[in-house]
């Protein structure tokens, strides 16, 4: 069996929403280059809806595919709905990830949450802090931090 599903390879080979949004309303960056993956998410928000989303990723095939899939899943969605996106849902949408690659889907969820929190903070919008676990220590990482 191949390492990755067809869907992972499709999103890896033809990633959706790659790039940068100039003057983005929210930006989230998670991961650590030392560990081999960093994800950066840019959001354009209009009336509490994700009007546009772009990503940049340094990482393996599943990190790029997870970023691509996660951005597809939240594009055009209200923030409240985007906040409910779980890493499990991202991995399932990709027809599964190898066990040692599941952290890539975790990064995707955290990158999106981090970008939404950035939007809230920039605009002084009250939010439930419990929805945003601290992404600074993503737990999956290699020895040295």
């Amino acid at each position, binding site marked *: 069996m191949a390492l990755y599903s067809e869907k992972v390879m499709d999103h890896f080979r033809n990633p959706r929403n790659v790039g940068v949004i100039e003057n983005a309303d929210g930006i989230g960056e998670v991961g650590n280059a*030392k560990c081999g993956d960093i994800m950066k998410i840019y959001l354009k928000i209009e009336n509490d809806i994700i009007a546009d989303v772009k990503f940049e990723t340094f990482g393996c095939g599943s990190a790029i595919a997870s970023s691509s899939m996660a951005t597809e899943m939240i594009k055009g969605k209200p923030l409240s709905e985007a906040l409910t996106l779980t890493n499990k849902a991202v991995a399932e949408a990709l027809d599964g990830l190898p066990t040692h690659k599941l952290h890539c889907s975790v990064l995707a969820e955290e990158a999106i949450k981090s970008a939404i929190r950035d939007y809230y903070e920039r605009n002084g919008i009250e939010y439930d802090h419990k929805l945003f676990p601290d992404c600074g220590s993503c737990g999956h990482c290699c020895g040295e931090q």
Partner: protein
Amino acid sequence: MKIYVDNAATTKMSRAAVEAMLPYMSEIYGNPSSLHSDGQAAAEALYSARERIAAVLGCTAKEITFTSGGSESDTQAIITAAKLGESKGKKHIISTAFEHHAVLHTLEALEKQGFEITLLDIDEYGLITAEQVKNALREDTCLVTVMFANNEIGTIQPIGEIGAVCRAAGVLFHTDAVQAVGHLNINVIEQNIDILSLSAHKFHGPKGAGVLYARKGIALQNVIFGGAQERGKRAGTENIPAIMGMAKALEDSAANISANSEKLIKMRNRLINGLSEIPHSILNGDREKRLPGNVNFCFEGIEGESLLLLLDDKGIAASSGSACTSGALDPSHVLLALGRPHEIAHGSLRLSLSVENTDEEIEYIITAVKEVVEYLRSMSPVWRDLVSGKKEFVIK
């Protein structure tokens, strides 16, 4: 286009090696331990293979033990020296930080049994010196084990000099020559090698066959117990077809080392020059003292697994020291030993050539790697930070 440049992982078997194996699967299939003529025919074949392999290495047939491959040979070599040392109260072993895991993990197991291990640091070119070994020797050193050529960055160590230092000190010297045999000139006498490991599938022989050379007088310690095969030092019915394929592949490789090296070095140097044109890239390992077919680079701002997958899409089969390719958390211990930071080591690419590669393929690879690196950098937030000056380049 399909281009295989992962020959350090394994090689395609030569036609001659395949043909050398075939009769021993369906015609001469007896067990060499059997007394009947079918068995004795196999025993004769085994004897001839042993002699032919010994001739290539410069030793006698009795000093050759057949094993399942490099890992088994490395393990048995080290366990042997450790047990001999222990019986004399010597429990110190010297090795290097960039050995193959077959060596490193065996040493770790011995460390838990009370052995003291000194791992020598390699320099920025991936080399150690005989002087370093000499300075690390102690009264209680029972073994020095240093790889002949590194499997990732291809650097060739001064084995003859290290052997001489060990011989003068009366300390056993083992070399993991898995990447070197069939590609470099080796003579165990001239190079003062006491114990040597080799693996057939690295020189166009079959997988699952290897050799442990141990100089006469070194009593091997069993790793596999059972019957009396291999003078009682390695139980299990011999894998005659694979051994015959190995002997043929080794003879052929050894006979062509000069011609093959010349061709490989030309292609290797062109590849190194071509890939050096990529900005913020660096060759890993010494430019000259490296295996004729080995090229290993780090490219800043990208990750190795995605590089490999996209190269595979372009028909190129290569390898990387990125953690993501192996499922490990840390990138290659070899690149870390070389002093590359984690984030740089993740962006590594190893291309290991064989004589079957062509100049056209080399040009295609250069173009493909340039394209893929540029593409991955275009979507990398790390690269963006480097280019914008937010972070400083590690590779100038």
